[in-house]
């Protein structure tokens, strides 16, 4: 128990030197010998039940048990448990754990032992996955001496493994994107005009996905445009701006298609389809070859564009 509520230091101690020696007899002796070898055994009663830990008699009838020992478990099922949020120094584990009755597979009785379900802070509540019916297995000590402590504790069966995965890349954007980002690093927005459909593609890809032709005619676009449509995002994510944030498709003036960007500088519930916006650039000294140079788009004081004029860009 914690010192603030527990007993104070004793002023008198009785301890038999070396500890008492106990004869365990043939039945418990067999159980302990098997434990030392890393096995769990029970004994069969005349009625056919398997008792674990074994006893020399059938507790139901008082009759002698048979001389048949049966290997059980070592896996078993928790039949009931009691949570220990603040272990005492005599307890087998130094962190919160459960005392559990565990019925080894093949046994008809349960064995009492400590159940370690993971790392928890002192005082923690029992985890939700700890419940009767849980499948568990013993954690054996490497050096065993033939005592119940040869099993350090029981622990849950393995149900999941962790598979860390990490891939490292040297990404290259390619010529067209490289040129686009070069423009962005100078505060300019560049696109390509498709020689077939004559639409301006921004950011350019060096090709027109619709016409399947290479593009090379460079066009500089203003950093103003019109919101065609948008979403108000309310799901927090450490990588995203604070919610609510608006992700919007912006049709830059003169562009043939929209760009997905953030829209800010206005309450989310006031963003409109047709709203006129302008890029908000980071301070020039922070510019690099990245779209992050533009923080977001924000409204400008111009009348909204009628829906008819933007409906074909959605």
């Amino acid at each position: 128990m914690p010192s603030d509520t527990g007993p104070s230091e004793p002023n008198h101690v009785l301890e038999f030197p070396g500890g008492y020696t106990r004869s365990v007899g043939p039945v418990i002796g067999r159980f302990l010998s098997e434990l030392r070898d890393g096995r769990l055994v029970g004994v069969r009663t005349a009625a056919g039940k398997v008792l674990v830990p074994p006893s020399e008699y059938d507790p139901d009838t008082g009759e002698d048990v048979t001389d048949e020992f049966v290997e059980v478990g070592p896996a078993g099922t928790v039949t009931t448990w009691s949570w220990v949020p603040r272990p005492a120094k005599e307890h087998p584990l130094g962190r919160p754990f459960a005392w559990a009755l565990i019925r080894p597979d093949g046994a008809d009785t349960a064995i009492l032992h400590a159940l370690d379900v993971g790392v928890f802070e002192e005082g923690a509540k029992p985890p939700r996955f700890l419940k009767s019916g849980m499948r568990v297995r013993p954690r054996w000590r490497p050096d065993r001496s033939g005592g119940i402590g040869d099993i350090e504790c029981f622990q849950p069966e393995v149900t999941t493994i962790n598979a860390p995965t990490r891939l490292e890349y040297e990404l290259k954007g390619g010529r067209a994107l490289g040129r686009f980002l070069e423009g962005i690093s100078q505060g300019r927005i560049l696109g390509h005009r498709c020689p077939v459909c004559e639409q301006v593609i921004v950011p350019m890809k060096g090709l027109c996905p619709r016409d399947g032709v290479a593009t090379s005619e460079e066009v500089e676009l203003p950093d103003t445009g019109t919101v065609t449509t948008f979403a108000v995002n309310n799901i927090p994510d450490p990588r995203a701006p604070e919610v609510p944030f608006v992700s919007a498709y912006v049709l830059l003036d003169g562009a043939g298609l929209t760009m997905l960007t953030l829209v800010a500088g206005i309450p989310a519930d006031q963003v409109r389809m047709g709203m006129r916006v302008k890029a908000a650039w980071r301070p020039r000294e922070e510019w690099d070859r990245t779209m992050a140079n533009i923080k977001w788009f924000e409204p400008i004081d111009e009348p909204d564009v009628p829906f008819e004029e933007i409906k074909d860009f959605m």
Partner: protein
Amino acid sequence: MADRCAIIGVGQTAYRTKRLDVSMAGLLREAAKRALEDAQLTWKDIDAVVVGKAPDLFEGVMMPETFLADALGATGKPIMRVHTAGSVGGSTAIVAAGLIQGGVHERVLTIAWEKQSESNATWALTVNSPFTTSLVVGAGGYFAPHIRAYMRRSGAPDHIGTLVAVKDRQNALKNPYAHLKIPGISREMVESTPMLWEPIRYLETCPSSDGACAMVLASEDAAKKAPSPPAWVHGTSMRSEPMTFAGRDSVSPQGGKDAAADVYRQAGITDPRRELDCAEVYVPFSWYEPMWLENLGFCGESEGWKLTEAGATALDGDIPWNASGGVLSSNPIGASGMIRFAEAALQVRGLAGEHQVDGARRALGHAYGGGAQFFAMWIVGSDKP
């Protein structure tokens, strides 16, 4: 002229948030064994295996077909993997059907799956490059603006999405495999849930599910020995288009219209609403029902929401959509398309159980994926084509 292809076996797992009780291989085998059992076949009767799942980053398993070959009885047999993002379940079935229609194989096992609990799809769908700004939006954030555009363009009233969210969950209560079961689901319940990606509410989105779906496809000869009535493939089509290009209609993509026209032509259908008995259509966000009603030609432009509002797509309507509860009720992403295809087959086989559409003889299975840029469809019927 292609050979005939029949669906003689369908197997599904229950769809759940977490199937921690099975490994990935175990999950697939559960569906596969049920499909084999439905067809009264064993692994050795199968000539080839075609598997499909959504992007590798979802579970971080690269080339799953290699590690699953023996688990799916493909030792010494051809196995291949199909990959078309969210439409993959449909595309996978179509590739498998092609192996029968081309006369290559007699019996093909096809399976699609996702074990979403092993990872986080929103993370996997929002991997930024160093060249772009961070716009963590996930699938809902991607589709929400297009839904808003549809609402504005069609003049649909705000509650249409709610109606679909309720209707599909009511259907799910009749489907033993469905993931989301919400007894007493109502408009009030849906409307009381928060806007995740306005205009999409929480209950207007699909769940995140673990699950697998499998089918055994067979040639006409092999189908003769099938123990229960087969479904027959009357047409298949796939189309794709880039995610962005000048002039793209992201609300009603041309790829979807073209795929629909193609599959209707193959099946001899000119009026899908009248000539089909039901449809299983990929609707992961409720508003995609009216959007796809228009894209798939069940009505004219800006008319889709009126069909939904009038109850035409309800289980007792004239053209039930997603009698199974649809993607809105179960979404193991890679499997979701195949579930649509398999449920369409179950309907025309008369084996859909409590969510059976009375007398269904011809049904559409539909899937889409990516930024609404991959489309896969088939039409199946009770009669030979």
